[in-house]
């Protein structure tokens, strides 16, 4: 994580190892807000990372399509993937497909 000097996100139990380790990050209220802060950090010359659970992937679709893509800004994502119980099953199934559909490449999945 040394290459990042700004981290924001929404926690997940699967990412607790990560948030415990990095200590300093901005705890956001929503995933799209974390992305907005990361864009601001990028504009200020930082190298940002955003972490989130795949259940919050839908919340950043608009930021990806109408901010990152048109403005040519890339933000690295750390995404935990939950696929059970039932309310996580569908997003668990389509997480990679959704990222592919969004032509998003700079992410790492935590299974």
């Amino acid at each position: 994580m040394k290459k990042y000097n700004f981290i924001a996100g929404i926690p997940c139990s699967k990412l607790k190892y990560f948030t415990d380790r990095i200590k300093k990050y901005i705890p956001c209220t929503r995933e799209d807000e974390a992305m907005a802060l990361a864009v601001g950090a990028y504009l200020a010359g930082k190298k940002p990372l955003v972490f989130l659970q795949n259940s919050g992937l839908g919340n950043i679709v608009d930021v990806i399509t109408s901010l990152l893509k048109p403005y040519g800004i890339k933000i690295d994502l750390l995404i935990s993937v939950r696929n059970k119980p039932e309310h996580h099953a569908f997003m668990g199934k389509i997480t990679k497909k959704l990222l592919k559909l969004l032509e998003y490449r700079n992410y790492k999945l935590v299974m």
Partner: protein
Amino acid sequence: MKRIDAIKKIMKNIRDELVISSTGMISRELYAVKDRPRNFYVLGSMGNALGIGLGIAINSRHKVVVISGDGEVFMSLGTLALHKKLNPKNLKHYILDNNCHSSTGGQPTCSDVVDFSKLAPNTKVIKVNEEKGDAPRIPILPKQIARRFKNAISSNRS
């Protein structure tokens, strides 16, 4: 007050500040009033102008001014709480409140029952008329907006 006159009034006192404007007519009118590389027009991504401003403010010493509307702010009301928690002294937020989504035809918002200025620091609500406005679309591409803004910041780090 007309919204564009509120923007003129804000910009009259702007020197080196970085100005982030929200989607819709506010960005268009800011462009019409005073275009400069230190303006970042958020053309899409409704709700995220303050978040971008916060990201810049906590990562630099630049003075940051965010100009948004009531519809914009409601899209990410939680960001006002984050603003209060982070409380950067170098960020000022102006909310131009016309109690509606004027660029889509004047559909109402809930701003008449909320006082935004009580939810976050350095936040000034300016009541403006309900009017669509006639400022044209911004003719520069988003990639150019981002590039020249980033260059303007890095050429004068403070």
